[in-house]
């Protein structure tokens, strides 16, 4: 796998990443479309995800839990806005309340994924965009969570080495 490019856009508040995988498109798509595969990469080892509901259709939802090292649980939700199996997916990733309803105090991030075949491999273009400046600020405020996850994730990598 190669990360071919990463672009940060300060005007539309997005990160665009292009990765090239040595695997056929169906297998890369499965990482998104199979809930048992999705939950193995969505969260870092220290904050793993458990996928509950998984409906990749326009208007469908994916719900998941993230479980932290101290047992704290965070709920997340994808609202699927577009899907073109096996090549494209678009969804809003939002924090949710325990009952699965979106928590509107917490930020929204829009993710757009496009897979294309490249020889025997697959290119994945992923754009993750904050819906607004307010969402970015909220994410930063709660996102000591992300910062923590990253820090602990990096510790995992160091400990495994």
């Amino acid at each position, binding site marked *: 796998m190669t990360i071919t490019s990463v672009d940060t856009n300060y005007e539309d508040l997005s990160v665009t990443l292009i*990765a090239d995988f040595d695997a056929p498109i169906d297998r890369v798509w499965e990482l998104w479309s199979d809930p048992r595969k999705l939950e193995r990469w969505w969260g870092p080892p220290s904050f793993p995800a458990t996928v509950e509901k998984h409906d990749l259709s326009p208007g469908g939802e994916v719900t998941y839990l993230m479980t932290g090292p101290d047992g704290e649980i965070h709920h997340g939700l994808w609202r699927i806005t577009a899907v073109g199996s096996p090549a494209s997916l678009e969804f809003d990733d939002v924090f949710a309340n325990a009952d699965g309803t979106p928590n509107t105090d917490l930020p929204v991030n829009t993710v757009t994924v496009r897979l294309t075949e490249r020889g025997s491999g697959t290119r994945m273009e992923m754009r993750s965009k904050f819906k607004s400046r307010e969402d970015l600020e909220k994410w930063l405020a709660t996102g000591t969570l*992300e910062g923590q996850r990253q820090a602990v994730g990096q510790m995992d990598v160091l400990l495994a080495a």
Partner: protein
Amino acid sequence: MVVEQLSNGAVDDVFHALADPTRRDILRRCIAAEPSVSRLARAYPMSFAAVQKHVAVLERAGLVTKERRGREQLVHTDAAAVGRARQALDELEATWRGRVDRMSDLLAQDTERAKDRTTGGSG
């Protein structure tokens, strides 16, 4: 939570990351000074409306603030907000780098398992 104090070099990094050269220039002009939109518009070979649009993009992204003083709108680069944008986008990037690494590991594990099935086994 500590937001890192943005050094001049780091502010420059953010500026270079802006795609539009006019917006980069507006951000620079508005760090130490607070020019009005009219004053800014005189600096560029484009209409007042075009400059207003550039300022609007920067304001929506939280990179500048506009303050009305009398009949003028003064524009100021919000260095702290620029720093917070950088921190958030850096964390978002790190999140996705981690995810892509794990996706790659999963694909490799599945390939290994498939190989074992076709080549190995005692039966």
